[in-house]
């Protein structure tokens, strides 16, 4: 076993840091920028460097580099709190899904655009009655000549109001058993009949949407993979969604700042504060190394499944503990929101505390992931 990075990998890390030092002025740093930092210009700059779709084949605009390089890149982007939302879903899961299941034409059309940072995706899976039980989804696609006609409603669609395309999961065969009638499509969000309505999260921010589809026409060539085999294709997309190091680094800038605050204010001499921060330090390291393990599996051509579920559960629950401890350490100041007079760290602690319950819902709840670990990982009876 060898935990070291090669000299080339170390140089790559330096290169990324160099770039970020130059591009990101300090004051921009906040949390959850992979979910909220929508800056297409920044994504395009990354695209110019080949830093989106890093692992994809060169013929589709990628760099054919390893998952360990991608790990280094994403780790640094998150460390700096870089605003990467515009390309994050495309880079993380849609690109790999198209690579795995798409037609040659689809690969040539979408992958280079994603890699250049020119298009953004949203993920249209969940519905009001189909959350954890995704296979119960009811949004329908009927066929009419060369078209699918979509009717139904999605919910919790992150960034639907910003995205160019939706990766949509629909029911194409209502008569089949529920897992066998599902297909995946790419839908242009400008198509007539699509309406996105904002849902406001606990922090007061709008990144979630309800999306309504009313006789939306989608060309049949936008079907990804096989018709009615969508359910079996989704699983690996979800594994990509769950396996990244963002799950342990969403609040990394805050983690650093709270440690610095404890040092400056002398709070770090308080045994309880020391204990709590030390514990978080341990948990962060554990989580980070687990994400390394997952990246290693990917670099070996293995799509992590129960490992991704383990990583996401542990890491997102760590993020919640981090937000909780940070607000405890700040005491009464921990309740002040961004924009408040007297707010320490610009109210970021209170915002983080309010956002943190979402981590253990998005991309599969902790309960569902624990089921995956038990049933698929250990083979326990379901």
């Amino acid at each position, binding site marked *: 076993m060898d935990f070291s990075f090669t000299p080339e990998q170390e140089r790559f890390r330096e290169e990324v840091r160099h770039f970020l030092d130059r591009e990101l002025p300090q004051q921009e740093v906040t949390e959850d920028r992979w979910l909220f930092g929508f800056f297409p210009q920044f994504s395009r700059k990354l695209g110019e460097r080949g830093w989106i779709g890093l692992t994809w084949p060169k013929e589709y605009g990628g760099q054919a580099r390893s998952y360990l390089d991608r790990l280094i890149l994403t780790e640094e982007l998150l460390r700096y709190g870089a605003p990467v939302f515009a390309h994050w879903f495309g880079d993380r899961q849609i690109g790999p899904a198209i690579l795995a299941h798409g037609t040659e034409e689809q690969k040539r059309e979408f992958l280079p655009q994603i890699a250049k940072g020119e298009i953004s995706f949203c993920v249209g899976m*969940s519905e009001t009655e189909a959350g954890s039980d995704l296979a119960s989804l009811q949004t329908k696609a009927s066929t009419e000549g060369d078209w699918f006609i979509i009717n139904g409603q999605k919910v919790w669609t992150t960034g639907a109001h910003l995205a160019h395309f939706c990766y949509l999961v629909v029911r194409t065969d209502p008569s089949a058993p529920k897992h066998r009638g599902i297909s995946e499509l790419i839908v242009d969000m400008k198509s007539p009949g699509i309406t996105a309505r904002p849902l406001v*999260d*606990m922090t007061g921010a709008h990144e979630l949407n309800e999306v309504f589809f009313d006789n939306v026409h989608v060309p049949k060539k936008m079907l990804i993979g096989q018709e009615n085999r969508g359910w079996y294709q989704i699983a690996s997309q979800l594994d990509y969604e769950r396996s990244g190091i963002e799950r342990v680094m969403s609040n990394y800038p805050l983690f650093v700042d709270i440690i610095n605050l404890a040092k400056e204010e002398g709070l770090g001499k308080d045994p309880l504060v020391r204990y709590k921060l030390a514990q978080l330090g341990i948990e962060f390291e554990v989580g980070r190394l687990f994400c390394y393990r997952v990246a290693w599996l990917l670099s070996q051509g293995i799509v992590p499944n129960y490992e991704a579920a383990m990583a996401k559960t542990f890491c997102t629950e760590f993020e919640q503990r981090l937000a909780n401890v940070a607000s405890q350490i700040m005491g009464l100041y921990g*309740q002040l929101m961004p*924009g408040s007079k007297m707010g320490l760290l610009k109210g970021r602690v*209170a915002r983080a*505390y309010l956002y943190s319950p979402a981590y253990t819902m998005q991309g599969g709840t902790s*309960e569902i992931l624990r089921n995956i670990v038990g049933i698929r990982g250990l083979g326990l009876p379901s």
Partner: protein
Amino acid sequence: MNLDFTEEQEMLRTMARDFIDKECPKTMVRELEDDPKGYFPEIWSKMAELGWMGLIIPEKYGGTGGSFMDLVVLLEEIGRGCLPGPFFSTAILSALPILAAGSEEQKQDFLPRIAKGQIIMALALTEPSATYDAAGVSTTARLEKDDYVINGTKLFIHDAHIADYLLCVTRTKGWSLPEQGITLFLVDAKTPGIKITPLLTIADDKQNEVILENVSVPQKNMIGELHQGWPVIARLLEQATIAKCAEMIGGADWILEACIDYAKERVQYDRPIGSFGMIQRYIADMWTEVGIAKRLAYYTTWLVEQGLPCAMEVAMTKAWVSDVYMRQARMGVQIHGGIGTTRDHDMGLYYRRARQVTLLFGDANLHREVVAQEMGL
């Protein structure tokens, strides 16, 4: 021993619950979060008519002379409904010190007006030091001719923006022992030199910064004796802490019931989510924890009511109930899935309140330290 509520207390609970459900449903609670005042004067008047503001004020000062346990019953319902407004600031944080240390004249003057809902008051204790001990108080009051002149900054002051009077905790003498030299004043909120700025908080619960610059207060507005204010505040903090615990328990109860309902209603995989072992375990734990919390809180309330020493029990209660409420709110959101994370869902309201309220009067860790000290460690 009798570990049940009286019939009157059960009636008070039912009446309070019906009143809050009817007069201030959650839609209005939310409206008030965005409202700069943060309360509805009409509801405030009705609460006074029901005798809530005077619940623990003796009859001779216009109250109904209820017990601390009565108050706990009412506060559980207030916490359950997240009822906004200056009740706690006025009827507890301000009325109790006046009752404990005010002169006969002050009692005659203020308590009946509190009981009738005619005045709103706020306790101006905490400062940028953000602690609840005497050492945290550095706002000064100096005698100049006939008046005291107050200077300093008070922070995290609930309801100061609508208060007619501020009960201001000041330092009138040096620092050798922080507890000595604290004096309390009732300050007319319209006195020149007072500047009030609202804070934006996680629970939108109307806290303020209050800057006092050369604020003159007549000597007759001193509550209790010169330099002797801290014991009054220390006693108040015990009472207020247990009263807040009652509010938290009410909130925790609401969360529990909301989760039970949701677990029965919400179907995934063709079954109510309450049929999954994990969800059952969460809810069973929540029920157990809040049940335990009640026993502890009622015992401590009884000690307070009897005037028995209760420093350790108050600290135990605050530590336990704070942790329970935080966990309850956290699990409440988790059990509701995505919908629980939205601004519009009521669960988020409790999640935000829980974070705020557990910080009040010292968080769980501070109270664990008190328990350790009381245990002789």
